[in-house]
């Protein structure tokens, strides 16, 4: 393997991504965790650049760093006082074991030198879902991939349905989140509680009626 500028950058970015991700899952201070999450997202954007998909690198910065991280930081600050809590729960050691095992399994699977492993008995070459695992050339891409992608989003025979469903999903997510997160006025909350109490009382009454005179109620229902 030859060492190029790209491999050096790749190594640096990998260290940044994995290191900051480790920091995220181990630190006690949630605000620091959120900052390190941002660094990790940034590193991932760098990996996208190395994969020559600049649009998604920028989109990663715009959506993950510019929007989702802000949501996280706001949530950390709104649930104040929870900055230093116990880091891990009771099953943390088991979780670590599972994660490490999974990692080992994935590394064994994607390791291209272990050609002798066969996924199915009798299979000569790893073929997963129609994509030959071993390929010989990497074709160059042009800038038109953004255009292609954009056209496919509104193409009825491509991804139009998921595209519109994504809009609906965002709609529902916003509606639900606003409904859950908004602070209601005390009067509003009280009114709702009264309504719920009234409903519960009604329910109880009906049940009592059922208990005391089941036959008559059933008969009334029957008619």
């Amino acid at each position, binding site marked *: 393997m030859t060492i190029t500028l790209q491999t050096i950058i790749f190594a640096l970015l990998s260290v940044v991504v994995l290191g900051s991700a480790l920091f995220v899952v181990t630190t006690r201070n949630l605000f620091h965790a959120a900052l390190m999450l941002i660094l990790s997202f940034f590193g991932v954007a760098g990996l996208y650049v190395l994969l020559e998909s600049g649009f998604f690198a920028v989109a990663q910065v715009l959506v993950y760093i510019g929007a989702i991280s802000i*949501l996280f930081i*706001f949530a950390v600050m709104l649930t104040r006082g929870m900055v230093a809590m116990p880091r891990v729960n009771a099953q943390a050691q088991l979780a670590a074991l599972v994660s490490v095992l999974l990692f080992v399994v994935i590394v064994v699977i994607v390791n291209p030198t272990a050609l002798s492993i066969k996924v199915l008995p009798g299979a000569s070459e790893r073929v997963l879902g129609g994509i030959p695992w071993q390929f010989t050339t990497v074709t160059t891409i042009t800038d038109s991939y*953004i255009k292609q992608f954009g056209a496919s989003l509104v193409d*009825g025979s491509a991804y139009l349905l998921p595209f519109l469903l994504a809009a609906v999903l965002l709609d529902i997510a916003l509606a639900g989140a606003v409904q859950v997160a*908004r602070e209601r006025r005390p009067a509003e909350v009280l009114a709702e509680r009264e309504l719920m109490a009234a409903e519960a009382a009604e329910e109880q009454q009906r049940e009592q009626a059922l208990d005391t005179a089941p036959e008559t109620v059933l008969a009334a229902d029957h008619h």
Partner: protein
Amino acid sequence: METAVRTDFGFVGVMFVTAFLLMAATLYAASLLRPKKPNKEKLSTYECGMETVGDTWVQFRSQYYIFALVFVLFDVEVLLLFPIAVAFGSLSLFATLQAMLFVVILLAALLFAWRKGVLEWK
């Protein structure tokens, strides 16, 4: 063998590193030049001369979070609209109508938030 650098994002990286180093150098130079005479009073948290009461965690209103929610919605929407805008020149009328429908669906979310009264600054 020489490899040509892909200069498109390469320059962004160089610019980022250069800007960061220049600014850090400025801070370092300032740290050499400036006096350093700290005392307890000077290093206390600034609150117009009063002693600070309580910790920094005053109650924040979830209003901020709701603004961030609407922002996230539109951010993701615009992200999906940019590639469509790039491809706009060759789109059919049907495809354009679908893109319009997409914006209309998301505008509905804004109207919902408006009706719920969460866009008010109270």
